[in-house]
């Protein structure tokens, strides 16, 4: 490859990296829950990226590559502070989700009927503000939160998630399963606390 081609390739790589800045910053903020720390981690991520930019291959996917660096920087960041992110052990049974609760709570929903009715699941979901959903995601253990972010919010494939987090693809699947079920339960718990649904299961009327 001529030096000229090489320079063009680097230029493209720099532009690619910059185009993912908002996503990288968003993920860093979700990881640290702190804007100042998020900025530090993003800066370190890009410093590391630029040092290995000459090794960067376009076909491998710039965004996944940056997320992998970000994840490593984040782990180092907490190791240096001698804080361990909240890694938890969870039992095999784990969270079961809220499907059965939804069915038994909302008269409009049935196991054999259409699931989305204005006074059923959709009505329930519409009560949540974006901030409340964000809080529910933030309250998940780290190993669950990162998969909700990578798969559901950033759209990475299972293989990309496995590469970024350096875990087997089977672990991605089982953690993502538990992450989604746990998130549903967080939302349900929050809805119960806020009186969006009553503990007895009856739907609270809006404004009641």
């Amino acid at each position, binding site marked *: 490859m001529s030096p000229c081609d090489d320079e063009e390739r*680097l230029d493209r790589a*720099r532009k690619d*990296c*910059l185009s993912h*800045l*908002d*996503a*990288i*910053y*968003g993920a860093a*903020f979700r990881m640290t829950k702190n*804007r100042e720390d998020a*900025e530090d981690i*993003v*800066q370190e991520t*890009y*410093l590391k990226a*630029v*040092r*290995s*930019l*000459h090794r960067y291959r376009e076909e491998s996917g710039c965004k996944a590559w940056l997320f992998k660096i970000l994840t490593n920087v984040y782990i180092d960041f907490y190791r240096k502070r001698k804080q361990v992110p909240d890694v938890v052990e969870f039992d095999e049974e784990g969270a079961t989700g809220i*499907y059965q609760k*939804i*069915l038994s709570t909302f008269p409009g929903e*049935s*196991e*054999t*009927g*259409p*699931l*989305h009715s204005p006074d059923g*699941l*959709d009505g329930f*979901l519409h009560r*949540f503000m*974006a901030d409340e*959903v*964000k809080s529910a*995601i933030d309250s998940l253990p780290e190993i669950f939160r990162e998969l*909700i972010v990578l*798969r*559901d*919010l950033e759209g990475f*494939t*299972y293989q990309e998630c496995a590469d970024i987090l350096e875990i087997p693809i089977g672990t991605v*699947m089982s953690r*993502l*399963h538990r992450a*989604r079920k746990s*998130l*549903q339960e967080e939302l349900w718990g929050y809805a119960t606390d806020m009186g969006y649904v009553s503990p007895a299961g009856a739907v609270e009327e809006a404004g009641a």
Partner: protein
Amino acid sequence: MTRQITCEEASRYVYRYLDGELEPSTATELESHLEVCRLCMGVIAFERRMIEFVQDSSTAEIAPPGLRDRIQRVLEQPSG
């Protein structure tokens, strides 16, 4: 003739199916099952709605301008 799968098997495939990660042949088997099993269809509809809800509720962060300036300067550094 597509192999018949059970509800228990179907329940294990839900997320992989919704994520587009199920092998095409297994996805076809699952879809055949869904055509005749409204219980599993209900589960799929529910899980799909929940994932979409989380995605729709998530507002994208914008990197602060000061950070963007710093990152642009970082990217101008020579590589290697």
